[in-house]
């Protein structure tokens, strides 16, 4: 049931991307191109997409806060609250990639449907980037744990 619900949600999400035109990198890039405002070439559609999405999801979340999910024993709300360096640095890196091509993860995956070789290459690179992050993060946290351990044992003398 949970899988079917998730399939439906993914499908609705994809329909939203298709209907709004946000599957098209050109449309996303013409929103990001604010210097085209004076010439009349700017396309504010993405702002309308976000506003409509926030209105509906915001209302849904207010309802969700009051109850347990229909198909699970608890809701898996994110728990992190700290505004830290990884959050900001990651957003900068993501913004560079997004600005270069006009694809973010959702539309990139939806566009796999077009079987475009360039999209496939983009998604493979995206997955490699994700896996590279996880390997680096694991290595970094292991060595951090080791150095804490070393410091602790040194302090214990």
């Amino acid at each position: 049931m949970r899988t079917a619900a998730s399939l439906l949600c993914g499908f609705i999400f994809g329909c939203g991307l298709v209907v709004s035109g946000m599957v098209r990198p050109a449309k996303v890039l013409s929103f990001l191109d604010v210097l085209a405002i004076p010439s009349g070439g700017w396309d504010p559609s993405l702002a309308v997409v976000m506003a409509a999405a926030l209105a509906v999801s915001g209302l849904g979340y207010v309802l969700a806060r009051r109850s347990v999910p229909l198909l699970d024993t608890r809701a898996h709300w994110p728990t992190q609250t700290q505004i830290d360096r990884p959050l900001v640095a990651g957003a900068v890196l993501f913004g560079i990639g997004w600005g270069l091509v006009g694809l973010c993860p959702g539309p990139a995956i939806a566009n796999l449907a077009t079987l475009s070789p360039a999209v496939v290459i983009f998604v493979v690179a995206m997955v490699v980037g994700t896996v590279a992050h996880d390997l680096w993060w694991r290595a970094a946290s292991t060595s951090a744990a080791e150095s804490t351990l070393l410091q602790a044992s040194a302090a214990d003398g």
Partner: protein
Amino acid sequence: MANFTPISAAIGGALIGLSAALLMLLNGRIAGVTGIVAGLLEPQGNGRAWRAAFLLGLIAAPVCAALLGYPVQVPQLPQSMITVVAAGLLVGFGTRLSNGCTSGHGICGIARLSPRSLVATGVFMSTAIIVVALTRHVFGV
């Protein structure tokens, strides 16, 4: 604003919001594509089925749209494959590092008024705006 499509943008946006709301109301999950992809890639991953199903639905939508005669175009990406690969790597690494993308931070995060998501969305939006300004208006790509 010749290309502004407010009505289809509002309908499409409402559908995206509905998807996020339903996934929380039904499964208690955040509709963040970054987290969903990363969860699938984790070696000791549990909950692979719902994540894979979400992505499958995401891909099925343009297919169904095309079958129903809705125009679905093959996206135009930069000619340079180096740019495409570099952008893919940056998007994959960056979204994972900041724990979210346009869906997870931009929609789900802001919808639950998370300060982290507001900051992340402001940063990736402004960075992308600067990159587009540079590539289109300074270097004229």
